């Protein structure tokens, strides 16, 4: 297993290099530069700023320079926030995304999982239909609708929770809930399907025939195999929930890196966008690896062959 993990980690390097190369090429292909503005700058000053950031060098040299720094873990200075490095910006913003994304996933797992199992156990009841209808709604309503509604109800209407900003646990609840909404719904549907499938399988039939109580059947026998499809969903979902929180960040005014990503792209902040792209790429690769490892732990049929 250690060998397998090492192998996968080494394999991630060329993938990341490809991501970095593509991002570099696409960013530089976009018209306009980081220091183009509506106002006019003296050409002398513009040239001086561009040479400070090596933008006056040929692209291939800029690319090699970037890769060289990257190899040392240096993501370069941000063009937009001129006195701050991309490393600093990410170090400051990424924990926010991790906290919000992680909490959202936790909520989605607990609530969605419970709803899914409950619906499966009450098959064809009004409960099941009602919960699944809610789940379809949850999947279809976009976050940019859910988030303001949550603020309207819980912050402006009831004054229970803050409408945004970043600080204690209370600041985490609404953004995490907004972000968790579609995932909760998705997990509920996934869990219901998987549980139904497992409940219909022969080994559960055997357990039932032996007269085991439902509780034991569910917890000891059914839950583990029912989790498998969820695990494969969880990898990309966790990456999505951490990287895809731009709308939530904007609506709640959270200091995460998702906002840097969009404003960085619009402002042609090459280094900032590159840094975040590479971080997101690495995160997805890492989570996929984690999913594969979890799979092996849960499913005895999976073995690390290589």
């Amino acid at each position, binding site marked *: 297993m250690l060998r397998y993990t090492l192998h996968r980690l080494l394999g991630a390097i060329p993938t990341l290099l490809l991501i970095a190369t593509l991002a570099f090429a696409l960013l530089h292909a976009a018209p306009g530069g980081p*220091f183009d503005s509506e106002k006019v700058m003296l050409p002398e000053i513009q040239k001086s700023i561009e040479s400070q950031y090596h933008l006056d060098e040929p692209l291939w040299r800029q690319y090699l320079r970037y890769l060289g720094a990257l190899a040392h873990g240096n993501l370069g200075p941000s063009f937009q926030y*001129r006195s701050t490095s991309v490393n600093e910006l990410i170090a400051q913003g990424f924990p926010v995304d991790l906290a919000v994304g992680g909490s959202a996933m936790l909520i989605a797992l607990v609530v969605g999982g419970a709803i899914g199992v409950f619906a499966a156990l009450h098959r064809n009841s009004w409960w099941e239909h009602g919960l699944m209808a809610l789940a379809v709604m949850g999947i279809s309503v976009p976050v940019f609708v859910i988030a303001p509604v949550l603020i309207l109800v819980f912050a402006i209407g009831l004054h229970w929770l803050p409408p*945004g*900003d970043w600080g204690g646990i209370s600041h985490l609840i609404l953004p995490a809930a907004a972000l968790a909404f579609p995932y909760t719904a998705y997990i509920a549907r996934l869990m219901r399907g998987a549980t139904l499938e497992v409940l219909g399988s022969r080994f559960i039939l055997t357990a039932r025939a032996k007269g085991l109580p439902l509780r034991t059947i569910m917890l000891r026998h059914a839950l583990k195999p029912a989790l498998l499809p969820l695990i494969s969903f969880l990898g990309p979902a966790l990456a999505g929930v951490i990287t895809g929180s731009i709308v939530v960040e904007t609506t*709640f*005014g959270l200091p995460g890196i998702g906002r840097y990503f969009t404003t960085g792209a619009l402002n042609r902040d090459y280094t900032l966008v590159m840094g975040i792209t590479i971080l997101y790429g690495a995160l997805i690769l890492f989570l996929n690896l984690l999913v594969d490892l979890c799979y092996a732990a849960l499913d005895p049929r999976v073995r690390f062959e290589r």
Partner: protein
Amino acid sequence: MGRRAFLHLALVVMWLAGCHAQHATTASPAASIRVGTQLAAEQILSRTLDSAPPLLDPSLITDVPSQFIMDDLFEGLTTLAADGRVVPGVASRWDVSADGLTWVFHLRPQARWSDGSALTADDFVYAWRRTVDPATRAEDAQQLAPILYGLEVAKGERPPSDLGVTALDARTLRVQLAAPTPYLPQLLTNSYLQPLRESVIRRYGDDWTRAEHMLSNGPFMLRENVIGSRVTLDKNPYYWDAANVKLQRVIYYVLEDRSTQAQRFLAGQVQFIQTFPTTDLPYLRARLGAQVVTAPYFGTLGIGLNVLRPPFKDNRALRMALNLAVDREMISQHVLNGAGFPAYTLVPPLPEYAPQIPDWASLSVAARHDLAQRYYREAGYSPAHPMRAELSVSSGDSVTTLTYEAVIAMWRETLGAQVSLHQLEFKILIQDRRLRKPDLFHDAWIGDYLDPVTFLQLRQSGSGLNNAGYSNPAFDAMIDLANQQARLSERYRDLGDAEHLLNDDAGYIPVYYYSVRHLAKPYLKGWEPNIVDRNLSRYMYLLEHEGN
């Protein structure tokens, strides 16, 4: 007087009432708090910013949110009153030579830095030289062009020590100008002319803007800057007018989404918001009443016409037709919900400057349309043979897009002109404009300082902001003439003549003047909406109140 003419007059009067003469008085507006007024025990103000200040260096900033922070942290020779008027800042008074070229500023002996050390004339000399020194790479370096050798130093043709600024002694600063600049006191409020402490910058380099190192001389000092989230300022006990600063702390929340700013206000988390979308105006008015404040802003949204090639080249009739066919009142009322004011000329109303509203603006809409159609035919077009062109705009803002869609519809209905909308990312739009690719384009401007030239330069030959390729020697000559005038009234007269000429030539199609839009709690006092939309926290205070 027609109803419409009366409306215009009323509008102008309203505007002028909102603004005041630039000449200074020393009274601190916060000093006029009435005796017996109950102030809130906790003087902490939460307000909002549209975007994150990229860095807190007065020489280097170019964006509006950073200027707001600088207005609280630093103070120039002059500063702004609550109503936006220019008032003495670090300089308590100044003398101007007869030719308007030499200004001597007398600094307050009480002026100090946030560590209690004395502020001297040298701090200004250092800061100005630093801004204009090409090694500093300040994007605004050329803004120091009015100062003697400012442009030459910025271009690297002369050393920074040649800049026309001298400390005659610790409290006297002499400024020599390249040309008379009657609006100098207004320029002096801008961040790139605020003082800096050399020893701190030498010691910490780029890191001097961090809260633990920064020295500032304004009413507040930096407590914390969480990039992308918030900037917190604490009262500076060494500020010369600290006795009249009531707020102990100011927290600026960074909220790019303007509706989110309004939500924060409704939830009671902030007491003052920088702006909200015009689309939210009816809802907010209904809900908040007098807490919604709108007023004119020193900015114009309009359409530029590329006059270097057909169809607009040498075709005044066509330009006039397009200009006349735009129904500004309709846009102001129905697209902007009243937040935005009909514009008939490039320069927004400015105290003491006679607005150059063209005569046709007083005609009825029907009469204007008749005239427009006549011009259109004169230009050689007809419904059977329509003019075709493309209007390039930025895709960022839905209200702006809606405005241009309305304009295109008006052109189609009144004239039969076929104009298509071309939406571009802002960076691409500015590049395309500079390359003079579009026929028609989004051409909006917010004044850098209170003077008509900040707008008229949009059509000056050789100006980097002239994306239309417009070049009119008579227009240029009038601006040059104005730039030689030492007296404001004469300067304004010449600039007015230049603008009049531009209107006659239909060199620009103004659509509306921007508005400032704030939400403010009724218990927040000491502020007024103003034409430059700079509301210094220095004057604000909170009255005793219940709830949020």
